[in-house]
């Protein structure tokens, strides 16, 4: 044992080492430990290197202070020292060095060194520079966190130009910089701009004509009238909902790993559309989405609305199949905080997850103060399912409908009770049957794969085929039987297990079904008679692939009696039901089952909503050191961002704190929320924000081009009771918004309109509208085939994978699948709906051009438009085609080109080609 021998001298000095390491201890360090640290550790853990995990091992002070997880070495106590724990490689979450375990001799040397009191002469230490953001006091002075301030009046030279206070501010700034506003936009341009900005749809030629005529009489009145008309239109909510749905990363499936269908997410979309159309104050709107379930509700309609609103927290791209459910909980909390931070506060909260924010005044504590509120909230149904699921909350109905539903539910319960009684009366089978006499695919026990010692028996006579197997009530946990059926074709099959029942049998036999859509575990009680024909119990209906990997596995682990396995039957779901083995008791069971099925099918169904709930044990949550879930530090009391501090956070002990969080976010005292909201609305109307980084109001975002203008808008917004419609109205009735796009005044003065591209939805809606095929149905679900499906059943994802987008409703209703986007949305910068979107990309790429040139959707609706054109008198045709598509007659060179293209007697196909090129042309894709 050469290693031990060489250590022997050092082992004798343990007693004194801690107090003052003597020469021998230092010698041990110098000969054994220093080279070891240099060879394996310092590359990542030194002040000259990387300081990974905050830990430096290049000085005594380095390991005394330790890294993010605390001191690395406790002198004298190897078992308590993180460094020793890491090199021992026993803990899966803490293993160092990363690239492989040290030789045993080196591990022993380190243990010895620690036991010796960790003598370490290296005292020279350079304190690591830690980058930190603004302090809280500095932060409170930063423009976005400071209270709102009304602007000083601005002198203007051109007194005649401004119509509103807003115009005064804008003109003042432009004049000061030596710029002039652009001329007023012509009425034709303004008509298209107003319609597209307020409703998302282009105006018809009639609507343009009417407006242009009225504007010739009295421009200001005509505009005000049109604006009020458009704000009152249902299409206003449908268009402006986009702003909110983008922020809320609205989607109708979870996407990511195992995408699951959010069957009821449409209720949230409808809630947003209805709320904006009803001009629900945005502070109330926010409160409902954070804490609607906790707010008082005056009637069932309010309760429904407020429950549906909380889907805001549940709609994230959750990886429900994550196997570590505590990790999953934490991932969900991170995602919720990221969305709340970006969407409502313009903050990059995620930066404070692993450490204090490096730029903004957000300590890591604040992140976990907020996380505690969401940790005290339930977003998952439970923490045990293999594939987790969200919470569906049943919704109350209005008076009579609620009474009818409850009466129906009572009837169903009664019938279920009768059925149970009838099943208990089923007689025990006494005769064997052959495999061939049974329907579907039947696998008898000898054809199964058997692991462990199973005994064959024919003792109880009611078996199938050659007998049955039992485990002799021995060797629990070591025996399994696997059926691996081969399926003639892909499809859904009901799996039924035949077993032999008796009082001595096991009560909870675990059966695992691996099918095309995942894995299900079913428990079978073998002490009761098999409910189907006294032979089978149903394991459920699943999809299996042809030649797929599907199997049914029966194990005897954790069973308290004899486990028996007789045979497996698989019945195609769409096949005829097998004839029952008839006797009176069977017949009664069949009849009651049929009656129950019919009753359930025809009766009313209670609607459910994706939602969150308060957890039972609200409390603060520990800091996760370096953001690693299992690396827990100090527990932080629940609270908010300290930089926006209006008094100590008072969060009730009883609730999650979401109500208080909602009040903090949507309170007048929080300057972030109103600034962020008005800036978003401004950006949507003007094409860019006063703060261009609409999601980032921190120190790394852009500064407002005009801070006083922003505060003016925010203060007005608060005075107007958080009304979106008043805010929009105030902006579009300014003269500045109504300017032309011509000229060269820089856009950040907002006194010259910006030409903007139609987004994916506007483009699709406009093509459908011009083709005459746009269906204007208001609200309601729109996923074909989702109606009868259990959304928490993983097979629901096939609705998404196989989805054919065929409807012609407005784009806001287009199924919002995360893994299977509508191709047009994917091509036109609306591909990714996994995270909150503040501002969409606007890319110019060839796939967009290819889509407009070659996609059947464009061709089809161009043809439809051509048919309408052809129905007109020939002299009107070309003008009408242009006016219906571009909102104006052709320019002279356009007219000439079109006439050349059409020739003397154009066919419908010629017109279709022309209409298609109008869809592809620049003026269709832009609004001036």
């Amino acid at each position, binding site marked *: 044992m050469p290693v031990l021998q060489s250590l022997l001298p050092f082992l004798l000095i343990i007693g004194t080492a801690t107090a003052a390491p003597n020469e021998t201890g230092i010698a041990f360090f110098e000969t054994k430990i220093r080279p070891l640290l240099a060879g394996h550790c310092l590359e990542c853990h030194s002040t000259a290197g990387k300081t990974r995990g905050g830990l430096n091992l290049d000085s005594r002070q380095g390991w005394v202070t330790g890294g993010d997880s605390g001191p690395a070495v406790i002198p004298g106590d190897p078992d308590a020292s993180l460094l020793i724990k890491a090199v021992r490689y026993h803990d899966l979450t803490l293993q160092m060095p*990363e690239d492989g*375990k040290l030789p045993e001799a080196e591990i022993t040397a380190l243990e010895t060194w620690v036991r010796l009191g960790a003598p370490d002469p290296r005292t020279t230490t350079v304190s690591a520079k830690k980058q930190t953001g603004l302090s809280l006091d500095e932060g409170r002075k930063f423009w976005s966190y400071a209270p709102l301030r009304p602007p000083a009046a601005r002198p203007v030279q051109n007194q005649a130009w401004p119509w509103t206070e807003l115009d005064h501010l804008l003109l003042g700034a432009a004049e000061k910089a030596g710029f002039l506003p652009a001329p007023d936009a012509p009425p034709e341009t303004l008509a298209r701009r107003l319609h597209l900005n307020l409703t998302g749809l282009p105006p018809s030629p009639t609507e343009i004509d009417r407006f242009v005529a009225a504007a010739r009489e009295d421009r200001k009145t005509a505009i005000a009238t049109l604006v009020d008309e458009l704000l009152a239109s249902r299409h206003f909510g449908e268009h402006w909902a986009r702003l909110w749905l983008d922020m809320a990363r609205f989607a109708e499936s979870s996407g*990511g790993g195992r995408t699951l269908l959010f069957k009821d997410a449409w209720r949230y979309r409808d809630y947003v559309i209805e709320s904006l159309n009803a001009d629900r104050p945005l502070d109330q709107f926010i409160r409902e989405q954070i804490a609607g379930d906790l707010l008082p509700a005056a009637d069932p309609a309010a309760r429904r609305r407020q429950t549906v609103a909380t889907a805001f927290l549940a709609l994230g791209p959750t990886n429900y199949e994550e196997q570590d459910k505590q990790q999953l909980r934490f991932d969900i909390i991170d995602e919720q905080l990221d969305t709340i931070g970006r969407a409502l506060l313009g903050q990059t909260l995620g930066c404070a997850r692993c450490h204090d924010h490096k730029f903004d005044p957000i300590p890591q504590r604040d992140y976990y103060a907020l996380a505690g509120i969401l940790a005290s909230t339930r977003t998952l149904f439970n923490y045990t399912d293999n594939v987790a699921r969200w919470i569906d909350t049943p919704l109350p109905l209005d008076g009579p409908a609620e009474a009818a539903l409850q009466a129906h539910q009572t009837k169903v319960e009664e019938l279920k009770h009768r059925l149970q009684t009838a099943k208990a009366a089923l007689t025990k089978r006494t005769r064997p049957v052959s495999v061939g006499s049974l329907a579907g695919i039947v696998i008898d026990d000898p054809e199964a794969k058997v692991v462990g010692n199973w005994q064959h028996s024919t003792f109880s006579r009611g078996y199938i085929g050659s007998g049955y197997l039992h485990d002799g009530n021995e060797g629990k946990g070591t025996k399994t039987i696997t059926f691996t059926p081969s399926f003639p074709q892909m499809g859904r099959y009901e799996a039924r297990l035949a077993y032999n029942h008796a009082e001595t049998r096991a009560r909870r036999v675990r059966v695992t079904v691996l099918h095309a859509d995942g894995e299900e575990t079913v428990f079978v009680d073998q002490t009761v008679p098999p409910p189907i024909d006294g032979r089978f119990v149903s394991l459920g209906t699943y999809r299996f692939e042809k030649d*797929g*990997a599907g199997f049914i596995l029966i194990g005897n682990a954790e069973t308290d009696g004899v486990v028996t396995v007789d045979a497996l039957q698989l019945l195609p779901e769409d096949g005829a039901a097998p004839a029952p083995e008839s006797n009176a008791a069977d017949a009664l069971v069949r009849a009651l089952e049929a009656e129950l099925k019919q009753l359930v099918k025809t009766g009313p169904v209670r609607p459910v909503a994706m939602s969150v709930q308060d957890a039972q044990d609200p409390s603060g949550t520990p800091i996760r050191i370096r953001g690693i879930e299992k690396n827990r530090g100090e527990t932080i009391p629940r609270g908010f961002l300290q930089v926006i501090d209006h008094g100590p956070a008072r969060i009730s002990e009883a609730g999650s704190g979401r109500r208080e969080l909602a009040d903090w976010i949507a309170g007048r005292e929080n300057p972030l929320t109103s600034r962020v909201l008005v800036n978003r609305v401004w950006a949507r109307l003007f094409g860019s924000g006063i703060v261009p980084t609409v999601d980032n109001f921190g120190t790394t975002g852009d500064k407002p081009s005009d801070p006083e203008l922003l505060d003016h808008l925010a203060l007005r917004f608060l005075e107007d009771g958080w009304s979106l419609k008043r805010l929009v109205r105030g902006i579009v009735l300014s003269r500045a918004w109504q300017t032309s796009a011509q000229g060269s005044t820089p856009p950040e003065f907002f006194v010259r309109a910006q030409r903007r591209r139609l987004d994916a939805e506007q483009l699709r809606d406009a093509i459908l509208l011009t083709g005459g095929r746009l269906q204007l149905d208001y609200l309601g679900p729109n996923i074909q085939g989702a109606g009868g499906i259990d959304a928490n059943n993983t097979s629901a994802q096939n609705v998404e994978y196989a989805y054919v987008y065929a409807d012609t409703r407005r784009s806001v209703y287009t199924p919002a699948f995360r893994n299977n986007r509508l191709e047009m949305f994917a091509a036109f910068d609306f591909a990714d709906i996994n995270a909150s979107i503040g501002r969409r990309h606007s890319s110019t790429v060839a796939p967009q051009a290819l889509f407009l040139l070659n996609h059947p959707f464009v061709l089809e609706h161009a043809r439809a438009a051509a048919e309408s054109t052809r129905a007109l008198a020939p002299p009107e045709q070309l003008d009408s085609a242009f006016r219906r598509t571009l909102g104006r007659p052709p320019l002279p060179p356009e007219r000439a080109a079109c006439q050349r293209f059409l020739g003397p007697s154009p066919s419908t196909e010629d017109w279709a080609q022309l209409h298609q090129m109008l869809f592809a042309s620049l003026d269709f894709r832009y609004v001036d």
Partner: protein
Amino acid sequence: MMTHPSRRDSLRTLACGFGSLALHGLAAQAHAKSGPPAPRTSHHPARAKRIIFLFMSGGVSHVDSFDHKPRLTRENGQMRQFGDLRSLAKTGTSPEMRVMKPLWDFRQHGESGLWASDLFPEMAKHADDLCVIRSMHTEGIAHGPATLFLHTGSTNFIRPSMGSWIHYGLGSENENLPGFISLSPALGNGGPRNYGNAFLPAVHQGTPIGRAGIPARESTIRNLKPLRPSDQARRQFELLRELNQAQIQTKPGETELEAVAESYELAWRMQTAAPDVLDLSGESPATLSLYGIGQAPTDNFGRQCLLARRLCEAGVRFIQVNYADNSNNPAWDQHSNLPKHGDHAKAVDKPVAGLLEDLKQRGLLDDTIVWWGGEFGRTPYAEKNGTGRDHNPAGFTIWLAGGGFQPGLAYGATDDYGHHAVVDKVHMHDLHATLLHALGLDHERLTFRHAGRDFRLTDVYGKVVPDLFA
């Protein structure tokens, strides 16, 4: 004073867009405004120019293919405490598991003496071309998280795919083709996020050709083919040119409008250039046969591999070839029926070997990295004591070939059972860092500023493994 981003940026974006990546790195430069200046050229001299990633979705069993563990045969059937990761993640405890021997015999191959099983006899013939990493480990026990981690470096957050990062760093070499292509990707297990650009500019998104479940012979770039006869399509295109010209004249100086008009010209050129690349009909019978095209089990994957070589020749930067399907138990996911690995092997073995041979013959292997592997490996024990293996992210094998990686090398090791990587461990972050390094990119400097901070493919992790290079 701030400047308006849309006009200038969109013109630049266009200049390096889907159809016109004329210069290396311009793609990155176009968006320099929203992040720190990204490299126009590489950070250091590159060993390779492009990657072909042969993705074996579902997780190939390493202990049945490239990681030889005689102990599994010796102890076959014995119950052992392994510390099953899935059980630990879910319940914190783990039951004993039954050791399961490999179903294919192992033998040594080539001058390097590489151990490989009879599962992949054709690949084994290339033993001296392969740089095998037997000490891989990664994150995520389920397919979704692990597949996303493989592609984006994160199991849960929304992050750009590595192909997008590479395209962002280096741009493309062909003005008529996308620079990042994924052949027959699946809708499941991450779906489009596996080739998505996330917060990187849209020009870096991967272009899917085909989709898992659709035969490779029917796969093409979307909307590439005009639906009308070519003379009509041309007339129509002439009309569009005239309309756009007339409209631009009323708005002088709008560079963005010019850029959009130019995008139609690019699309028009692509319609003629791209189909040639996708068309395999000009390939010789010898080449087709090399890939197993025209033979039942290998035809489909053979076509994908041959297309990958053609895209590689055409200058596409990152080509992913997916052996995948849309189910939750994709392809190699043999939980219950391990012999089925044999069927999958028959479908991919010859095409993969053919691709290596073909690249070598054409001198393309020198500057092309071929990467073969799945999102994780499989357990050395039987799942639930049945007849298959569960997922194993703690230790598994992948191989690299070409692109300056050391041929005939077997790097790192797992424990005696093949359960955990223990010697010279290579984390998926390390593999990402190493691949970027080979392409001349420093994974710590390839960053993009988003939501207030700089993001990387490797987050704050990852170490280049220099020993892998020749």
